[in-house]
């Protein structure tokens, strides 16, 4: 099962990476924008006899290992965080016992429980589809995360169209969800899957359009370049030239992006595919044990991914005054600088995850027709309006500032 997921994610990593990565930098010019894993392997100095394909394969496998660890860690930490945040928002503690300190090991205990649970497949289920659906869901999110740079010089693949890759691979999870809903042979599951499909199609549009606003402000599709672009605020390298600061319409765009991202990741108030109060557990009704946890891992990884995309394109990516200070003091390019950049991104990502949780525990769920109304009648036209206004602002800015 997990082997399949890893294989699929390796496939997606390869297909994501192959186009930009394996032809050029891996083979020939290390250092010049090469994958950090490849560079690491070359720095370790394997003998010349080792063929380049072996190095490429090792770096891909290493990347898959890192991704699997990353997704598991993100899911583990986010689940614990969700439980603590929801607890405190309801004036209670949340988990407190497992592991000693504030129940930090709760998710590990839950994971062990899920691994030991009986793996049920319903009698009338389409076994092959039922079996493969969680893997596809997880592989989609692995592929999307593979397009994510971890720091200025830590990335699996340097993609000039990184944000497109992320959005495209991120929305392939819908296929897995629809597959799961269909294969379960249960009306709840099918309802959940159809809702997921309808919802994702409706919100894919405002998500993409609202992302166009910062893309216009920053003038790049690459996450690394977008981050680098936001270092300077009106020519001053202070690490605060974030898209929301340089263009006020980006704030509106961010609100639209955020609502659409909530719907994309099936989070409350848009958790219609899961719909505990109506559809038992939606498309996950018939799943149990580790298969079920794959869907959960996907949800939390997708939350983190969307938060990071939001952070990169609206809130400066790796850039904070701290990184600007480090650049000014000349520690640019050191390991510490990379670590700080990585930490900044992770912190911003989890700040976004916290915002998602905050919204989840604040808002009541909406009806499916309200979801559709919001997506098509409100967010899409408003996103288009935002694009128009951002473009006008950028045009004016370029006229004034040259």
């Amino acid at each position, binding site marked *: 099962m997990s082997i399949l997921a890893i294989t699929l994610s390796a496939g997606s990593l390869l297909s994501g990476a192959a186009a930009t990565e394996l032809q050029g930098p891996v083979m020939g010019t290390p250092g010049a924008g090469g994958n950090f894993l490849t560079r690491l392997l070359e720095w370790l100095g394997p003998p010349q006899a080792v063929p380049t394909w072996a190095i490429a394969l090792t770096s891909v496998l290493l990347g898959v290992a890192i991704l699997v660890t990353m997704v598991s860690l993100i899911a583990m930490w986010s689940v614990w965080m969700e439980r603590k945040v929801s*607890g405190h928002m309801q004036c209670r503690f949340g988990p407190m016992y497992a592991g000693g300190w504030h129940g930090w090991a709760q998710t590990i205990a839950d994971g062990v429980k899920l691994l030991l649970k009986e793996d049920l497949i319903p009698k009338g289920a389409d076994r092959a589809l039922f079996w493969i659906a969680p893997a596809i869901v997880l592989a989609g999110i692995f592929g999307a995360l593979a397009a994510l740079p971890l720091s200025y010089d830590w990335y699996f693949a340097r993609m000039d169209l990184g944000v497109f890759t992320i959005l495209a691979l991120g929305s392939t999870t819908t296929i897995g969800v629809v597959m799961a809903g269909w294969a379960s042979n249960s009306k709840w599951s099918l309802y959940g899957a159809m809702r997921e499909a309808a919802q994702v199609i409706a919100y894919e549009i405002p998500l993409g359009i609202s992302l166009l606003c910062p893309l216009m402000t920053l003038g790049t599709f690459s996450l690394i370049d977008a981050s680098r672009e936001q270092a300077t605020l009106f020519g001053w390298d202070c690490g605060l030239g974030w898209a929301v600061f340089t263009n006020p319409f980006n704030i509106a765009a961010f609100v639209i992006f955020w609502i659409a991202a909530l719907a994309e990741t099936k989070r409350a108030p848009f958790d219609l595919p899961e719909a505990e109060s109506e559809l038992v557990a939606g498309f996950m009704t018939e799943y149990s044990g580790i298969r079920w946890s794959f869907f959960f891992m996907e949800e939390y990884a997708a939350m983190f991914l969307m938060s990071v995309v939001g952070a990169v394109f609206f809130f400066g990516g790796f850039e904070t005054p701290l990184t600007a200070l480090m650049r000014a003091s000349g520690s640019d390019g050191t390991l510490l600088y990379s670590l700080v950049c990585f930490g900044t991104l992770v912190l911003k990502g989890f700040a976004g995850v916290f915002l998602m949780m905050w919204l989840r525990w604040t808002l009541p769920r909406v009806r499916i027709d309200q979801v559709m109304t919001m997506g098509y009648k409100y967010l899409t036209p408003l996103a288009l309006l935002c694009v128009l206004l951002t473009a006008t602002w950028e045009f004016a800015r370029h006229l004034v500032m040259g």
Partner: protein
Amino acid sequence: MVRVKEYFGNVWKTLATTWGGMRITGKYFLQKPITVQYPDERLPIPDRYRGIHYLEQEKCINCLACARACPIDCIEMEAIRHGKELEWVSFTLDYQKCMFCELCVYPCPKDCIHMGTEFALVTYDRSELNHDLLSFRGMSREARIRMKEAEEKKKAKEAAKAAKEAAEAADSKDEKGEG
């Protein structure tokens, strides 16, 4: 124009109400939780709380007033009387039946049965719910001492009586002898 106003009004209302809600949940998020970690800490229980009974066994005189007052007959007691002292065999209260009405507390002439603040009645077996309220079985140390003292007193009294009788008999003998 009205439609347009309504449209943007809806947008504004959505944002404003969401922000209002987020402020409320944010406030609760920052304040201290009102729940307590139950088995480790407990909320204070009011004095008049009707929990599991406790018995001041030394005071009890086995008068059965509480057992008679109980509307569902869940109290049973047994003690062997040694003069004034009691040798306790059992004093059971069946919590499968008990409805915590506190009617057993009022008729007690010695004010020795009370309702406590303990309320957790979780057991692995229903038979464990038949609580024995005795803190000891048999006789208490004090009762034994009191009984011994009483016996010694009695013996001493009897001995004194016997001695007196003997003395009186001797006296009458003497009187007879002289007379």
